[in-house]
């Protein structure tokens, strides 16, 4: 009965717990992992179970603690380094990119760096400029580091397990608004391996690729589009690096139309990469139409009305997909529907 249900939070916690049980070289640390809030519960109980040597909070020192994770990995441990916001990784870029991503190569294969970096993307409740960024494009840009952005509890567990077992640095990108989502999660350990995307919902007119939390919006957009007589295929890349372009390209080869929706900025972002690769792959084989959506090209405003305009949502995605299908700006925008609006959270944080 793999129909056991868990929240995204529970799935992350179980993955870490089971892997730490299985492999004594796995350790978990980061600011506040052992505090009463336990990173929204994703690390709850780990310190009681595995002790303060394998699970510990740290000083505020993102740069050094990332280097510490690398040093642990060089000594044979498999650290999981947790950050409450992805924005704070900007303090760790030197260790992540100049060292972690390069060590296996620049030391001629003599070392490897199996670290997992978990970080959360914030949204809503006035997260604002510095608590809302989805910066994974940086890690897609640089060779030597893998990136996963699971969008449901099943994949959250499977990607974290795969990340822990991977011998390379892996960034696990989590989205705050996905944490309460509930879905089937097998209890037995399993991996959602790098480099395989999933067709989440079939369709024939247009391909919607939804990254991280935007997958939820894409699925709602698909409903809007269906009611409008348009059949959308929705794809979850799951892993952004390595990226499964085959599955995406196969879908676009069928639909001829691609809307790449990102939970980050579009310029030099994941959506640019998906569009560019699909075009390079399919050009000359058939007519193509592509479109990117993501954060507005601005800093994230905390005030609700502007914040709502900052993100792509089910209705704007549906509208864009419809325009792509129609080949013109039709002006069509689905109505707000009660209930369809995203599960959000009330503060304080």
């Amino acid at each position, binding site marked *: 009965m793999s129909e056991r249900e868990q929240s995204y939070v529970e799935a992350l916690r179980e993955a870490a717990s089971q892997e730490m049980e299985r492999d004594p070289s796995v350790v978990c640390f980061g*600011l*506040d992992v052992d*505090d*009463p*809030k336990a990173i929204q519960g994703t690390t709850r109980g780990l310190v009681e179970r595995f002790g303060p040597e394998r699970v510990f*909070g*740290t*000083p*505020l*020192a993102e*740069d*050094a603690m990332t280097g510490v994770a690398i040093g642990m990995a060089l000594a044979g441990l498999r650290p999981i380094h947790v950050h409450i916001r992805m*924005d*704070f990784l900007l*303090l760790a870029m030197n260790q992540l990119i100049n060292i972690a991503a390069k060590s296996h190569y620049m030391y001629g294969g003599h070392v490897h760096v199996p670290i997992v970096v978990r970080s959360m993307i914030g949204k809503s*409740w*006035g*997260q*604002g*400029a*510095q*608590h809302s960024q989805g910066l994974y494009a940086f890690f897609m840009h640089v060779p030597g580091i893998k990136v996963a952005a699971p969008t449901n509890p099943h994949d959250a567990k499977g990607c974290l397990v795969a990340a822990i077992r991977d011998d390379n640095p892996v960034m696990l990108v989590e989205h705050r608004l996905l944490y309460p989502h509930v879905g089937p999660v097998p209890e037995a350990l399993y991996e959602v391996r790098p480099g395989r995307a999933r067709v989440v919902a079939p369709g024939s007119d247009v391909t919607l690729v939804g990254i991280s939390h935007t997958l939820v919006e894409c699925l709602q957009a698909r409903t809007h589009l269906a009611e409008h007589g348009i059949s959308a295929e929705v794809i979850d890349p799951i892993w952004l690096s390595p990226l499964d372009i085959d599955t995406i390209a196969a879908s676009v080869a069928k639909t001829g139309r691609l809307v790449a929706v990102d939970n980050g900025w579009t310029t030099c972002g994941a959506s640019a990469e998906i569009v560019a690769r699909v075009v390079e792959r399919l050009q000359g084989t058939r007519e193509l139409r592509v479109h990117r959506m993501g954060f*507005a*090209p*601005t*800093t994230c*405003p*905390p*005030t*609700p*009305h*502007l914040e709502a*305009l*900052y993100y792509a949502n089910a209705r704007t995605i549906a509208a864009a997909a419809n325009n792509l299908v129609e080949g013109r700006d039709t002006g069509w925008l689905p109505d707000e529907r009660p209930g369809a609006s995203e599960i959000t959270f*009330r*503060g*304080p*944080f």
Partner: protein
Amino acid sequence: MADLDRIYRLLFRIRRVEEEIARVYPTDVIKSPVHLSIGQESVSVGLCEALRPEDAAFGTYRSHALYLAKGGDLRGMIAELYGKATGCAGGKGGSMHMIDIAAGVFGSSAVVGTTIPHAVGFAYALKLRREARVVACVFGDGAVDEGVFYESLNFAALKRLPVLFLCENNGYAIHTHQRLRQNVPDICARVTALGIPSERIEDGDVLRIAERAGAATDALRGGESGPVFIECMTYRWKEHVGPGDDWNLGYRERIEAEEWIRSDQVARLATKIDPAARVRIEREVEAEIADAFAFAERSPFPEPEALHTQVFRESP
């Protein structure tokens, strides 16, 4: 000679503004995180007694007290929390990014430690231009964990810059006590080793803080002395973020708070001033606060166009 009426007004005003924020918070008119200063008012008030309007202050995401003590506009602050176009950052900053240039309140940031080098760079400019202004740089004990703290203080000392570094040590970074983050809790010793004179004020006494900060800024205005460091022990009464208490979380003991509540500077100063003056001050402050919240309530949200403005500054 300290003006106790003014000091009481500042303390009482900050306390009541924060209490009012906490009161309305459950109604969701404020849709963003708030890091309240209740219990820590005396640090900012004491510091700002030593600052002039033209001096600059840099703070953290917990800067309501600093903003108000330095003279930041109350209406603009509350409107900012409400996300209104009339907010001090036009609704684009939120509680963690209080700013009022006219009052010398420069940005406060949500990323711990980030404003420390800003204060240092600002001071470099003042020294380069031979201005007698000083810069106050306020941060928490958590910022002392970060490498940027050492890099910034080393440079400030190297260039003898007019910065008063003030560490607002409330003992915790979120729920983690200083002793779990810093092997040696003596922050002053770390700073002294960088060549910066430092002192600790243990009891949050607003008058002592004002006196010591005044001595520091007097020296700084002289020019060549170089930076000064003051550590002010204090205590956060409310949860790290949000309007509530958090004694239930179990990361700290309530009795820890009691000595601080006993020595509460708001209550203490209330007894030091003329009762009639106190009544007048409190009435005026309550009116001002009521006005500010009403202003925020009736102010408009930003127009949709505002999303795309101010990404870049168009050169005049």
